[in-house]
């Protein structure tokens, strides 16, 4: 349900806000003392027919991947071009950061992260993304100097950015400690004890039961990473979607923000769908297994 609604809710809310603010939307987006003839601008931006016309028109265009042009950030450039340039970078950033938190979850589950490290993890988890990103930016400046925008510099920015995203704001700590707690709680169930007595591994028994919870946690953490990408991309000067969204917000470019925010919402919706599919597969697996077990009467 949420997955279906998200890509519509975000532009609808933005449209609603534009019309709920005092003053006419065209002059709000571009004040008359800067733009002059706001009536012509309103017509060009489809703002002259009320919120419903604007929303429906924008959504109809968006379904054909037509997001219009940037209003201020890169005036006149098609927003789709900006998105095309930004998306691969952000996808790489989030993918590597996801690997970092998944590594944390696996290490904690397998017992490779000693418990005496928990206080350290908790402390590191408190550090905000901005502070770690600044440290990362300084490390890049020190290492690459003027060459920090070379190909190797860009790669370093991406990797450091992903590491910052994966560790800051409790991402790694939450993944490691959260997943471990989930498994430990499940391990206390009677069926796990019986499985151990039968000589089986606890993980093989608990995994199907905790998988929906772990999948849900992982989705929430990826959304958290998407949120943090804005700060990391701007501080580390990574030309991704977060940087684009921030630039659009700062310069009040509604064209860019509408498209970027809707894209973020769509990614979130896709993650919800993936979660639902995985949960269904796990449920089917649980229903199917165990095979070959017969209750003797």
């Amino acid at each position, binding site marked *: *349900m949420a997955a279906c609604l998200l890509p519509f809710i*975000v532009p609808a809310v933005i449209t609603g*806000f534009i019309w709920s603010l005092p003053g006419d939307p065209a002059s709000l987006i571009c004040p008359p003392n800067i733009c002059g003839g706001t009536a012509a601008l309103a017509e060009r931006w489809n703002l002259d027919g009320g919120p419903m016309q604007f929303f429906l028109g924008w959504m109809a265009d968006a379904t054909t991947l037509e997001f219009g042009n940037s209003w201020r950030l890169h005036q006149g450039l098609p927003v789709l071009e900006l998105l095309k340039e930004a998306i691969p970078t952000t996808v790489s950033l989030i993918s590597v950061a996801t690997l970092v938190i998944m590594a944390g979850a696996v290490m904690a589950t397998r017992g490779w992260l000693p418990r005496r490290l928990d206080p350290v993890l908790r402390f590191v988890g408190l550090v905000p993304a*901005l502070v770690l990103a600044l440290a990362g930016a300084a490390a890049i*400046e*020190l290492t690459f100097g003027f060459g920090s925008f070379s190909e190797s510099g860009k790669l370093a920015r991406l990797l450091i950015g992903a590491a910052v995203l994966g560790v800051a*704001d409790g991402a790694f700590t939450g993944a490691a400690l959260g997943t471990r707690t989930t498994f430990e709680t499940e391990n206390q169930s009677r069926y796990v004890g019986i499985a151990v007595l039968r000589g089986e591994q606890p993980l093989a028994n608990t995994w199907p039961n905790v998988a929906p919870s772990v999948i849900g946690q992982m989705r929430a953490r990826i959304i958290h990473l998407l949120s943090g990408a804005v700060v990391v991309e701007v*501080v580390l000067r990574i030309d991704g979607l977060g940087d684009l969204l921030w630039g659009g917000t700062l310069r*009040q470019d509604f064209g860019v*923000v509408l498209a970027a925010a809707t894209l973020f919402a769509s990614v979130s919706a896709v993650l919800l769908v993936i979660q639902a599919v995985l949960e269904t597969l796990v449920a089917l697996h649980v229903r199917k297994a165990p095979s070959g077990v017969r209750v003797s009467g």
Partner: protein
Amino acid sequence: MNRRVPLVVAGACFAALLGAAFVAPEHLGNIRPDLALKGPLDVFPFGTDTRGRSLWDYAAQGASVVAIPAFSAGIIVAIFGIVGGLLRCVGSERVNAMIQWFSEIVGALPRMVVILVVALLLPRDQRSLFPLAWTWAILAAPGAMDEAASVAERLGGSRFVEALRAHGYSASRIFLVHVVGFNLRPVVVRQGAETMMHVVFLEIALSYLALAENQPSFTHADSLKSWADLLKLGYPSLIPSLDYHSGHALLLALGLLGLVAVMSIAIGRSARAR
């Protein structure tokens, strides 16, 4: 568990934050080029900026920017948490389904994206941290409600309430004292304290990102300085080749962030059950 130590620490940190906010000067002090970038040993208590103005003014103005909005956001989240826990105790399936729907929608949105959309729509002459802090609180609310509802569930939910009714307890005593006071308190207070901390971090992040692009902040008037200005001032000291002696500003900024983090943890621990 002894709650006295965290209570004292939380109280001291909160008093320091509020105290600094209330005594914050309206404008920074006079420019003194001869005192530029002096350390705390030269100019008490925190040293000076590039124009010889005391960093205390920065710290106090930054506290005035974040203190009340962050506190109000914490209160909002705590209230949402209480409502979530109480509704679980009431045991209405329809209400719980509505809460789950609300949680799914709000929880699925990347928070920073929503914050930026709200920031975009704020009129430039009404810039303040309040709307952003309250938006953050609403985005954090589903988590708090979920956790409080889980606590209420473990407690027995509506069966717990019925049991206390059978003992002749009044509704206010059951819900306010037993459910909220004795059982939900640790969760909602911790969630509120964490939200306070996150709002402070959010303000610093937004202000820093705006500063990095030489743009006005969304969270406060141009005449005020935020703790992000301290970070911006101190950052070049991390690069020795720049020969910029502003490490004291960086340390002060990190110290202030640490103070907020310690306050948040201490508030959470002081609310734990004995």
